[in-house]
C-alpha cells in the first residue's frame, strides 16, 4: 500500500511539473494582449473604409486649425487689432515682440494633418491589393485628397516659417527618423507642386453632396492651390494657365445681392474649397468667438475701417458685410445678413464654414499674374468683374505694374477681408522683384507697434527672415537637427 501511495504521489508530482512546464508552448497567446479600446495597427488598414476614415481625420484636424489659419493670415497684417482679451502670445506677435517661446509658433497641428495624410498615402496602395471592393479609381481619388491636404499644410508652413522639415513618411513606429532637419522652402514648394500636378487628373469632382463637393478636395481646389503656389513663386504664366482650367469648371461669382451668402450659409456658387462645420454634427467652428464684440479678442483695425466703411469707401455691399463700422466688430463670421444687426443664432455661428479658396480669390490671383506680365487690359477686366458684381464703380488704374499691384492689393483686402489672406498677400508684395518693395511691407508691419519701437523694428525687418515666425523653442529643444531662423537666433529669450 505504501508503495502504491508513493506511486500516486509520483504521478501527482509529475502532473504538476508537466502542468507547470506546459504553458511555455502557449504562453505567447497568453501574453499577447490587445487594448480593448480602439484598434491596434495589426487590425487596422484592412479596407478602403479605413483609408477614408483617416483621410476624414486629416480634414477634420485641418478644419479645427481654422482659428489659427485666420490668425496666421491676419495677425501681423494691417486689417486687425488686438483688444483687451487678446491672448498674450497673439498680442506679442502683433506688437512685433516675437520670441521663440511664443505659443503661436507651435506647428504641431499642421504636422498632425501631414501625418494622417502620409498614412493614407502609404496604405492606400497596400490595401487595394486585398480589398476587392477598392477600385483603382477610388484609391487614386483618396491619394489625390491626401496630397491636396498635405500640400496645403506645407504651403501654409512655408509661408509662415519659410523652412520646415519635409516629412513624407508616416510616423508609425519608434524606428522612424523623427529628427529631420529643415528643407528649403523652394524644395518643399517644388515637391508639393509636382505631387499636385500628378494627382490633379484623379481627383473627383462630384462626391454626391454639396457639402462634400465644397468640403473635400476637388479639381478646382487642387488647381486653386497650384495657382496660389505659382503666384507665390512668381510663375505668372503658369498661374494663369491653372486659373484658365479653373474657369472651365464653371464656377460663378455670387451676384451682389447675394454676396454675403458666401459666408452665410456658405457653400455658395463661388466656393471652391471650404472646411465644413456643422454644430448638429458636433463639428463646431469656434472662430466667431475671437471676433465677437463682447469677447473683445480681435477687432478690425483702422485700415480696415477706412477701407470698408461705406461712408468713406462707398463699399455698400462688402463694407457692411465684412465689419460693423461703429464698433469695429468683424461681421463675416457672426452675421446673418450684411446689415450689421441680424446675428446668426449661435448654432449657426458654430456652423460657419472656413473658406480656403473661392472664385473671387482665384480671379484676383489671375489679375495679379496678368498685370505682372503687363497684360493690363485683361487684368483690369478681371478687377472690374469683381467690382461690378458688388456694385462698385469700375477701377481706373494707370497702366503700370506698381499701380496695378497696389490696386489689386487693395481689392484683395476689400474682397477677402479677414479671410486669412492679407498677410500672405503682403509677403508676396514684399518678396516680389527681389524685395524691391519691401519697405511698403515693413511700413505696414510697424503700423501697430508702439512709436518708441517703430524705428528699431523697421531696421531689423529689412532682413526678410524676420517676416517669418521663429521655430518654437520647445521644438528646437526636441530636435537638435533644426536650426533656428537666423533672424531669431540672436534673439533667444534671455
Amino acid at each position: 500500500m505504501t508503495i502504491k501511495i508513493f506511486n500516486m504521489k509520483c504521478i501527482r508530482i509529475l502532473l504538476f511539473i508537466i502542468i507547470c512546464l506546459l504553458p511555455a508552448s502557449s504562453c505567447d497567446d497568453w501574453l499577447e494582449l490587445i487594448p480593448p479600446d480602439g484598434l491596434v495597427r495589426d487590425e487596422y488598414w484592412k479596407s478602403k473604409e479605413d483609408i477614408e476614415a483617416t483621410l476624414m481625420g486629416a480634414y477634420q484636424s485641418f478644419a479645427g486649425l481654422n482659428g489659427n489659419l485666420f490668425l496666421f493670415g491676419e495677425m501681423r497684417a494691417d486689417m486687425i487689432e488686438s483688444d483687451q482679451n487678446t491672448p498674450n502670445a497673439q498680442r506679442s506677435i502683433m506688437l512685433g515682440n516675437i520670441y521663440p517661446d511664443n505659443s503661436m509658433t507651435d506647428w504641431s497641428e499642421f504636422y498632425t494633418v501631414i501625418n494622417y495624410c502620409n498614412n493614407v498615402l502609404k496604405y492606400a496602395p497596400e490595401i487595394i491589393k486585398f480589398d476587392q471592393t477598392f477600385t483603382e479609381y477610388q484609391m487614386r481619388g483618396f491619394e489625390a485628397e491626401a496630397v491636396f491636404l498635405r500640400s496645403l499644410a506645407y504651403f501654409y508652413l512655408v509661408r509662415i516659417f519659410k523652412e520646415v522639415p519635409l516629412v513624407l513618411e508616416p510616423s508609425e513606429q519608434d524606428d522612424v527618423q523623427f529628427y529631420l532637419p529643415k528643407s528649403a522652402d523652394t524644395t518643399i514648394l517644388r515637391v508639393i507642386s509636382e505631387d499636385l500636378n500628378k494627382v490633379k487628373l484623379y481627383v473627383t469632382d462630384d462626391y454626391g453632396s454639396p457639402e462634400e463637393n465644397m468640403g473635400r478636395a476637388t479639381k478646382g481646389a487642387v488647381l486653386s492651390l497650384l495657382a496660389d503656389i505659382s503666384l507665390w513663386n512668381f510663375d505668372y504664366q503658369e498661374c494663369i494657365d491653372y486659373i484658365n482650367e479653373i474657369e472651365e469648371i464653371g464656377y460663378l461669382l455670387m451676384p451682389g445681392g447675394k454676396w454675403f451668402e458666401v459666408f452665410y450659409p456658405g457653400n455658395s456658387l463661388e466656393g471652391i474649397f471650404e472646411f465644413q462645420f456643422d454644430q448638429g454634427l458636433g463639428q463646431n467652428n469656434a472662430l466667431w468667438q475671437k471676433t465677437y464684440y463682447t469677447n473683445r479678442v480681435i477687432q478690425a483695425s483702422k485700415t480696415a475701417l477706412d477701407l470698408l466703411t461705406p461712408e468713406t469707401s462707398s463699399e455698400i455691399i462688402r463694407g457692411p458685410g465684412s465689419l460693423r463700422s461703429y464698433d469695429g466688430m468683424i461681421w463675416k463670421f457672426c452675421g446673418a445678413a450684411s446689415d450689421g444687426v441680424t446675428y446668426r443664432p449661435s448654432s449657426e455661428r458654430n456652423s460657419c464654414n472656413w473658406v480656403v479658396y473661392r472664385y473671387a480669390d482665384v480671379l484676383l490671383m489671375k489679375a495679379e499674374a496678368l498685370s505682372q506680365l503687363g497684360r493690363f487690359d485683361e487684368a483690369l477686366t478681371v478687377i472690374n468683374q469683381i467690382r461690378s458684381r458688388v456694385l462698385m464703380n469700375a477701377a481706373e488704374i494707370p497702366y503700370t505694374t506698381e499701380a496695378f499691384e497696389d490696386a489689386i492689393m487693395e481689392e484683395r483686402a476689400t474682397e477677402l477681408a479677414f479671410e486669412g489672406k492679407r498677410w500672405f498677400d503682403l509677403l508676396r508684395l514684399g518678396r516680389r522683384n527681389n524685395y524691391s518693395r519691401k519697405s511698403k511691407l515693413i511700413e505696414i508691419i510697424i503700423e501697430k507697434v508702439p512709436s518708441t519701437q517703430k524705428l528699431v523694428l523697421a531696421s531689423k525687418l529689412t532682413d526678410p527672415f524676420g517676416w517669418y515666425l521663429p521655430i518654437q523653442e520647445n521644438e528646437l529643444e526636441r530636435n537638435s537637427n533644426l536650426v533656428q531662423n537666423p533672424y531669431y537666433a540672436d534673439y533667444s529669450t534671455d
Partner: protein
Amino acid sequence: MKSGLKIVALTFLVLISIDLCAQDGVVLRGSVQDAETGELIIGVNVIEYDQDKRIITGTITDPNGNYVLNVTNPDAIIMFSFIGYKAQEIALEGQTSLNVLLSAESYELEEITVTAEANTDPLSNVAQRDVASSRVKIDMVDSKHMGAVSAEEALAGKVTGLDIMSFSGDPGSGSSIVIRGLGSLGNARPLIVVDGIPQSVVISQDFDLGSADQEDIGDLVNIAPQDIKSIEVLKDAASGAVWGSKGADGVLLIETFRGSRGKTKFDYQGKYTWNKQPPPVPMLNGNEYIMMQLEEWHNAKGIYDVPQEIAFDPDYIDFYNYTANTDWVDAISRDGFINEQFFKLSGGGEKTRYYASLNTHNNKGTTINTSLKRVTTRVNLDYNVSRKIRFSVNFSYSNSNKEDNYQFRVEGTKQRTNIREMAYQKAPNMSIWEYDFKGDLTGEYFNPVESYQGSGLQYFNPVAVGNLSQNDVIENRISNSFTLTYNIAPWLNFIQMVSMQYVGQKKNEFLPYNAVGSDWLNELNNFQLEQNNTNTEIITRSQLRFIPRMSENHTLSGMLMFETDQINFEWSTLQGMSGPSTEVRDPAANTPIKWLGSGTQETHILGLLVNLNYKFKDKYITQLNFRADASSRFGSNNRWGMFPSASFAWRFSEEPWMTNLTFLTESKLRFSYGQAGKQPRRAYDRHAIFNTTNPSQYILRPIVVPLQVQLANLKWQTLTQANLGIDISLFNRIDITAEVYSKKTEDLLWSNYKIPKSSGFTTLKQYNGGELLNEGWELDLSAFVIRKRETTLWLNFNISHNVNSFVAFPENFNNEVDLSIGNGQFPRRADLGEPVGSFYGFKYLGVWPSDDDVVATNENGEVLLDVNGNPVPLSYKGTYLFQGGDARYADINHDGQIDLQDVVYLGDSNPDFIGGFGGNFRWKDISVSTQWQYRLGYVVVNEVALNTEGMLNKNNQSKAVLHRWRAQGQDEPGMLPRAYLNHPANNLGSDRYVERGDYLRMVNLTVAYGLPKNICQKFRVRSLDVAVTMRRIFTFTYYTGQDPEISPNIENPFWFGTDKAKTPPPKAFTLSIALGF
C-alpha cells in the same frame, strides 16, 4: 498558460484526491483525568492518527472531562494533549473505551516566544544567516509603541541606503521610499511584498495625470503597523532578482504575525496621538500688506490712483471686507489627533494555528477638512492536514476613507494649488467672512468674483474651500492567499500559492459655488467629479524545492518556480458642472457633463526562477539565481527578459586560523552581482492605437486616426548591480556591516518621451535610452554597550552615501531645457557624469543702495565704459535698467547685462549622506528608545520664500519683507529689494532662494513601562504596558522654510528639489496602552 485558474482547479483536485475513502467507524468513549489530583480535565484534544501521522479526526473533552470520538480505524493511534500536560499517544488496538490519566509537565511554563522556525526567504529558501546578498531585516517587535502610522514611518532612519521621506503631513499621504538612489525615471518605488505576496499598486488613470502626482501613489500598503512582525529590505539585484520584474527598484518584504501553538492570547492596544504643526512662516498682516502694496504701486508707476481695495476709503462698498487682518495660514490649520485601537487574537493547537486582528485608525489632520479613517482586519490561518501537508490562508481587508480639500488645477500644467499654498498667497487685508457696507457680517464667505488680487477662481478663499469643498477617496482593499505545502519526501517539497488582490478606489470631488468667487456661468461652479478605479491581481506560484541530504560538509538546496501574474485595471471618470445646488454632489444627477471617460488595462506576466544554493563546510556559500520574465507590455520580439544573479559569501570567522581571534564571532565577506528588469507602467503603450477623435466625423463620414506611435523596439529596462559587503561581529556584542555597491541602469524607460512635433505626435509613450549610475557605500554599526540581566543598552548608527549620475543620454537628447529666465525661473541643464538634481541660476549680491550705485564693472571692479567713454548702464537683458533698491546680481561676463550668460551652477538636490542613529535602554521594566534621522549635503529651492519675498505681485509676503529697501541710499545688511509691482528682474532664479536642506531630526523618543509579571498576575492579565512617544519634536537645520524633507522624484534628468508649501509632517505626542490576556 491559459489562466491561473487552471492551477487553482488543480490545487483543489489534489486536495480532494488526498481524502481517503471512509471506512466503517468505531465509537470510542472515555474520560481524561489529572494523574496527580484526579481532577477531570476539560478541553483536552483527542485526536486520531493513521500510520502516516495524518490527522483523521478529533474532538475535545466536555465540561465533565468525557469524550466521544467516532474512530474510523480500529487500529488507529489516539493522542491526548493539553497545554501544561505531557501528551500521550495510545494505540487503540480495537478498544472502544479509553480512560486516560495525563501528568503535568514537570516545569512551569514561562511565556516564551518561539523563534525556532527556520528563518528563511519565502522564495529562495535561504536561511538568514547564510545570506550572501545585501539585505537587512528589522524586527518590529520593539516598535509597537511608536506612534508610527505606517510601516514606512517605522523604518525611517533605521536602514542604510533606505531614504524615506513623507510626501506631506496630511493624513494618508504616504511616503517616498528610495533604496540606494533613484535607478529609474519617474516613480522608482520599491516592490512591497507582504507574506510572500507582491502588493498591487493602484495605477492612477492618466487622462490628466500623465505622470501621476506623487501623492496619488503614496499610500501603497494599508497594513496595520502592529500586524508587522518584521520588515526586510532587499537592496541588491541578487536578493531582489527572485522577485522578478517588479523588484528592480528594490524590495521590502513585510512579514505579519501568525498564530503559534498555545493558549489563546488576546492583546489590546490603544494609541492616542496629538499632532502639532511646526510654526509656519510668519506672514504680513493686513496693514503691513497694504503698506507694501502701496509701495509696489508707487515704485512701479509713480503717481497713480490707489486701487480702492487698498485705499482705506470708508465710502468704498467693500471697505470692511478689505480692512481685515486675517492670518490665513492659521485659519486653515488646527491641531491634529489620532485615535488608534488594535485588537488581536492568536493561538493554536495541533492542527490549526490562527491569528486575527482588527485595527481602527482615526486621524484628524492638521489642515482643516483633512482626515483619514481606516479599518484593517487580518486573519492568518495555518492548518496541518497531515505531517506532510499544510494549508495556509491569509486574508486581509482594509477600508480607508480619506478626506481632503479640493485642489485647483493650475491652467495648462499638471500642478494643483492646495489651500495651504493659497493661504500663503492670499491678501491678509481680506476678510474670511463677508461684511456688508455697514460693517455687519452677512454670514457668507467673502468670495468676490474679481478681487484685488485677481479672479476669484485663481485667488479663492482657502477657508471657504477648506470647509465647503470635498475631495474624498474611499478605498477598499482585499487581499487573500492560499498556500499549500506538500512535503513529498524529506528532500523535496512542493508549494502551491494562489493569491487574489482587489483594490477598489472611489474618488469624489465637489466644489460648491459658494466656496469660490465665480460668476454663475462658470463651469467650475458646483463642479462634481466621481472617479472609480478597480485593480485586481491574481498571482499563482508553483515551487518545487529540493534539499538533498548530502554529507556533513556539503549543503545543497535548490528551487524551481513558475509564476503567473494577471493584473487588471479599470477606471471610469465622470465630471459634471454647474450642478443645481450645493447639495447635489453626484455628477450622475443629470447635471451638464464636463468630461466622461473610462478605460481598461490588462497585463499578463510570466516568471520562471531557478535557484541553487550550495554551502561547503558552513564557510563557503554560493547562491545562484536565474530569473526569466515575460510581460504582455512588450512586443513578441523583446518580451522575455533574462536576469541572472550570483552571490558568494565566505564566513571567515569559521576558518581554523581565525579561531584564535576570540573576539571575532560570526563574520562574513559577501559579494553579489546580478541583474533585474523593469517594465513600463502602462499596459498598452507599445501599440499603435487607432481611435476616433472629437468630433468623430467630418461632414457625415466617420473618422479614425492613429493616436500613438507603435513601439516595436520597446524592451526591458535592465539594472545591473554589484555589491561587496562585510559583516563583522565582535565579542558577540558589536555588529558592523559595511557595503559598497555600483548600480547601473541601462535602457532607461522614459515615459512620454518628447519627440519633434514635426512627426505629427508630441511624445512616444515609452522610450528606452540612456544609462543611469548609482554608486555608494553604506556603514551600519550596532552594539550592546550594556547587556546584563536587568539593564541593557543598545546603540546603533548608520550612514550611507550615494552618488547618482547619468552616464549616457538617449540619442538626440537635448540636455538643456527651459532656458528662458525670468522671475522664479531656474534654467536647467543635465550633464553626463554630474549628479541628477543640479540647477543653475544667478548669483545674488544683495540690493543696490541707490540709483548712483548701479554701475556695470569689469573684471577688476572698475566701472565699465563704452567706446565714447560713458559708463555702461547695468541692464536686465538690455531692456530694463537697474535702479536703486533693485536686486543686485553678479554680472559674470562683465558685459553690463544680466542675461543667460550670467547663470552659474548653484548646487544639487541629492543628499551626500543619509542615515540615522538611535538606541534603546532598558532597566528592569522601564525602557527608553530613540531614533534620529539625518540627511546632509544637499540644497533645495525654497519656493515658499521665492513666492513670499519677491514683492512684485499682489500675493501676500512673509514678515521677512518688512526689512526692505525703501529710500535712496538705504544700505543695511540683509535688506531685501524694494517692492515693485511686476518688476522684470527682482526675483530671478538665484541663489537667494537656494538653501542648504541639511537636517537632523528626532524621529521618535519612546519611554515605556511594563507592569511586572507578579503584579500582572494579581490583575489576571498577561501583560500591561504603558508608553509615551514623542515624534519629530526636534529638527536641527539651517533651512528657513517649514520643512526640509523634499522627496526626490526624477521624472527626467532635470529634476531638482523645491519646497512647495506642503503640509509639514507634524510634531506628535503619543500615549499608548497595551494590554494582554
